[in-house]
């Protein structure tokens, strides 16, 4: 198990380094940071002055080495556009996204698990199909579109919920639905598959034979075992929510790291872009790593790959 854990850790770190190199190069290829920083009304001399002042005229590998050194020391850099330390900016925004991602996953679980259980219990009936289609619609709808439908129906039509901002808990409901709905199909199908496998197993048959009511068997004995893989999937989905929030946060005008990412792209704020990709990657990879370990613990076959 230790060898498996170390091997996975090594792979995770390798992915992390690759992500940082790719991001570092891509953000610099996408646009001239000096022109962006100088602003649209700057003269050529001003642009050149900015280029020299911020070191954008140095070779890329040299710029990367400096940046990596700072990151390892815990310094994510200074945003020249916002004139503030990057870490401070990100930390200020992280709670909104964390809350949103948490609520989204909660919504996904509340919808997906009952659907998965019902679908497994009523396997291959119309109920099963219906449950599946409810979940699949979530994946098929692009979330910006679904978000707009929510705004039109719940915000403009019924006027039940506030449309934009993140000031109150009510502001989180529509975004959490828009973001969480996307995760429902995966969780629902895994729950269904797990339930079907468990319901067919010997101990369930024994439990039923002992005369326990069906509902109790399903809810207590079967679900608990079927949910084990769902836990690790949910961890991964939570990481996915962090990055998926880019669109949803922009649509609902929430000041989380997703929107910060979008803003940074628009204003070519390289320092923040890099830091965000790095932070989201770290969270995502950490969640993935934990899911791997969990799976490895639960299923010894995975360890000998």
């Amino acid at each position, binding site marked *: 198990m230790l060898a498996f854990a170390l091997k996975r850790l090594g792979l995770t770190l390798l992915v992390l380094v690759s992500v940082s190199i790719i991001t570092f190069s891509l953000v610099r290829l996408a646009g*001239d940071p000096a022109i962006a920083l*100088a602003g649209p009304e700057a003269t050529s001399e001003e642009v050149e002055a900015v280029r020299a002042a911020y070191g954008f005229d140095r070779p890329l590998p040299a710029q990367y080495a400096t940046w990596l050194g700072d990151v390892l020391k815990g310094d994510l850099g*200074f945003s020249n556009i916002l004139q503030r330390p990057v870490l401070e900016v990100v930390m200020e925004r992280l709670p909104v996204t964390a809350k949103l991602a948490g609520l989204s996953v909660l919504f996904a679980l509340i919808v997906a698990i009952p659907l998965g259980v019902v679908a497994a219990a009523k396997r291959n009936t119309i109920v099963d199909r219906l449950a599946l289609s409810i979940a699949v619609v979530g994946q098929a709808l692009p979330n910006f579109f679904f978000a707009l439908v929510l705004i039109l129906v719940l915000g403009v039509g019924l006027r039940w919920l506030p449309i*934009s901002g993140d000031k109150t808990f009510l502001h989180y409901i529509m975004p959490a639905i828009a973001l969480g709905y996307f995760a429902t199909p995966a969780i629902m199908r895994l729950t269904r598959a797990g339930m079907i496998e468990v319901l067919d197993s010997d101990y369930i048959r024994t439990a039923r034979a002992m005369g326990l009511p069906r509902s109790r068997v399903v809810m207590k004995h079967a679900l608990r075992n079927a949910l084990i893989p769902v836990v690790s999937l949910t961890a991964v989905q939570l990481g996915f929510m962090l990055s998926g929030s880019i669109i949803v946060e922009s649509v609902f005008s929430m000041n989380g790291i997703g929107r910060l990412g979008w803003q940074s792209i628009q204003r070519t704020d390289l320092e923040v872009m890099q830091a965000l990709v790095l932070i989201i990657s770290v969270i995502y990879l950490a969640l993935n790593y934990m899911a791997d370990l969990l799976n490895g613990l639960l299923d010894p076959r995975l360890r000998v790959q």
Partner: protein
Amino acid sequence: MKSFKKVALAGAALMPLCLSTPAVAGPDDNALIWSTDREISVPFVWWDTVTEMGAMMYHIYDTLVYRNPETMEYEPLLATSWEWIDDTTLEFKLREGVKYHDGSDFTADDVVKSYSMLLDPATGVRNASFVSWMGAVEKIDDYTVRLNLEKPFPAALEFLAGTRMAVPAAEVWDDLPKKPDGTTDFSQMPSIGTGPYKLASFTPGEEAVLTRNPAYFEGPKGQPEIETITFRTIPDQETRVAELMVGGLDWITDLPSDMIAQLGAMPGVKVINGPDMRIAYLVLDRLGKSGDTPVADVRVRKAIAHAIDREAIAKQIVGPAAEVVNAACYPTQVGCTDDIPHYDYDPEKAKALLAEAGYPEGITVEMGAYRERPHSEAIMGYLAQAGIDTKLTYLQWSGLRERLTAGDIDMAVRTWASSGLNDISAIASVQLSGAPDDICQSPEIQAALAKGDTTVDPEARKAAYKEALTMVAEEVCWIPLFSYSKTYGVNEALEFFPTADGFPLFYLAKWAE
């Protein structure tokens, strides 16, 4: 099943009661909320030049000179009069009895302090070219200041009426905190102005709240009517439109063209179309730097100018308030004149000019663009009808700028908003004076513009610019196309006056009775 239905119905009925709707702005509480997708990071235009911050500068602060947004004339604001002592000395008498938001008196010391900070490179003012014309500022007495310019600068009044020339109280510069690198953190500057509104709260990137200044002096801006003005950043256009529909917002701009008709039909909302100082123009490779290009021939450039129906593009694609522009400037700008050669829409003449230049079969050229794609596509459509096939290279501005600087593109659609300055030197002298991305590169045009830029006598100055504009038209290396127009979606009860420089002036706005 029946009981479930009952519960669901009861739940649906109770929903609106449980979820209280958020506070809505509007005429009832004499408040106004406006929004765009732009964010403001520092509440002072020296360090954040977004239009939205520029607009708020006019609310929180005053300038020495006021440009009347209706007549475009310069009127006294913090100054009561001014006088050119000589070509490089401008003296102002200041208004007495003006109070800052904190109750302190406005005097010459405040002007001297602000302008000195503005000129000090350590202040790090963005786009310093806007202020570099000022030489030094000098206090004569408590209510008299003198600007000693380094060279004659006839557009001084226009620049002095601009957002950067705001005069905050001198004390705001005291005791500012330091950034980690040891430099002063100007983003922490307190906001103390003399303007019709006070900055009540500010959250970077999110929100700015202004409240009415009840003690505002009687001046050309008049007394503000609306009590609270809130700016909110909402990145998504559809979200802003939805908020306008439910009354969460009272003012939005840059409406998507497909939504204008729809929004105009909504109850409680009206659509306003206003002018915009931004103009679009084609730049052409006059010198043939991009290789063996047909546009190096002036007849081909004239053909291109005749081939485009600018009137149709302006009115049908850009918007009702858009206008055809013939000179390399926005028509209201001081020094701009329409009395120069015109190239009217005439596809037959365009074909004849092409044939005369030796291209009876037509030509193929590459055209760069970076802003509104439909505008470029309309231009391409008209050019194709005259036998000019274009390959569109659509780039980000930084990419197009690199191509122009390298000189390897036949022509490009460019735009310029003059930073809202109503003086020709803010456009022609910026775009045609030999910067690396200027592909006209004409020493004669540059000389005429330089003469205009430094001639204080108004008539001689106009004559110099007319000469430059005529040369631009004859060389056809810069084909003016049309001015933009701006659309606003506003609460039906709001009386709002749109300005061409794009700065919304809410101190002029009010709620209809």
